């Protein structure tokens, strides 16, 4: 990912050449090498070249961040495994509908704690070297619409998709039908980025449809209501819609379909 960003930005003249050592430091920077946050060469380079200042604070903040990441992973995400392990065909067939919902919401919380915990560890590790990498999460659950959710969930991927897929396709400056095609294309690529399976493609499509639906709703209804009850209801609705999609993410296609069938029909 880092290489594709570098190659694209170099071609577009957005990133300077730098030295071989700086390039290698960028693509081999171990805190973010495995699973992000996705960084950009032009943002990374000044931090790499800057003289380190405030080592004490960098170390204290970095270690705190790593510890909090480990707490999220061990004390929240792993603890929920007891419930999410049941998301398999045999247990789904035996379970009550309400229990299925509970398992799905547990997975939603687990994946957030797991991935934001991982990001905390990566960001904290980078901070130990005095380098600040982009944030990946900003309290995504509890956002009032799907667009805000994606601005706060896996932020570095959302920015990558916006800058390197959505905008090059024309972004919002094209005809209305084409905007929806662009949204769907960006989210389909997001699905494929997560895994090469039909379930991930459908997961991306689900989020693309939610984003397109939100855009249509916003154009129809105008600016969002500030009524407290409406805001609360929209936060819950967004949370439920996001969690409804996780079944496609955490199970293979056949099991996910069985899950939805049991949830709706039984």
């Amino acid at each position: 990912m880092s290489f594709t960003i570098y190659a694209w930005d170099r071609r577009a003249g957005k990133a300077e050449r730098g030295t071989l050592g700086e390039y290698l430091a960028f693509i081999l920077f171990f805190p973010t090498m495995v699973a992000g946050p996705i960084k950009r060469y032009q943002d990374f380079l000044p931090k790499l070249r800057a003289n380190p200042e405030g080592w004490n604070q960098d170390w204290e903040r970095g270690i705190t961040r790593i510890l909090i990441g480990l707490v999220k992973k061990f004390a929240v995400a792993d603890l929920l495994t007891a419930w999410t392990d049941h998301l398999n065909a045999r247990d789904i067939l035996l379970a009550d509908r309400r229990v299925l919902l509970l398992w799905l919401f547990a997975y939603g919380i687990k994946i957030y704690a797991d991935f934001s915990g991982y990001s905390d560890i990566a960001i904290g590790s980078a901070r130990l070297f005095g380098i600040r990498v982009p944030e990946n999460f900003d309290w995504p659950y509890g956002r009032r619409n799907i667009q805000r959710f994606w601005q706060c969930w896996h932020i570095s991927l959302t920015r990558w998709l916006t800058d390197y897929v959505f905008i090059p396709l024309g972004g919002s400056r094209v005809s209305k039908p084409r905007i929806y095609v662009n949204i769907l294309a960006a989210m389909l690529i997001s699905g494929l980025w997560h895994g090469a399976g039909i379930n991930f493609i459908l997961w991306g499509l689900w989020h693309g449809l939610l984003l397109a639906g939100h855009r249509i709703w916003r154009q129809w209804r105008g600016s969002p209501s500030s009524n407290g009850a409406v805001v609360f209801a929209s936060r819950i609705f967004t949370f439920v819609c996001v969690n409804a999609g996780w079944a496609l993410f955490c199970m293979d296609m056949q099991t996910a379909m069985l899950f939805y069938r049991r949830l709706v029909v039984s």
Partner: protein
Amino acid sequence: MLTDLRNTMEYLGGERDDPPQFLTNAPLWLLRCAVWIAAIALIYAFCGQTSKFIYIDF
């Protein structure tokens, strides 16, 4: 109030460098020590359940 709570949590979690306004006169070193001790205790209590992250190993 919610913003203060959020800022406090972000500060205690290492995301923010500066404490929220109402904490500027508090003994911050004590708070940071408490966070480290609580975090280490929780990690010790719950570690060893799994060995992989979802986003690394789908």
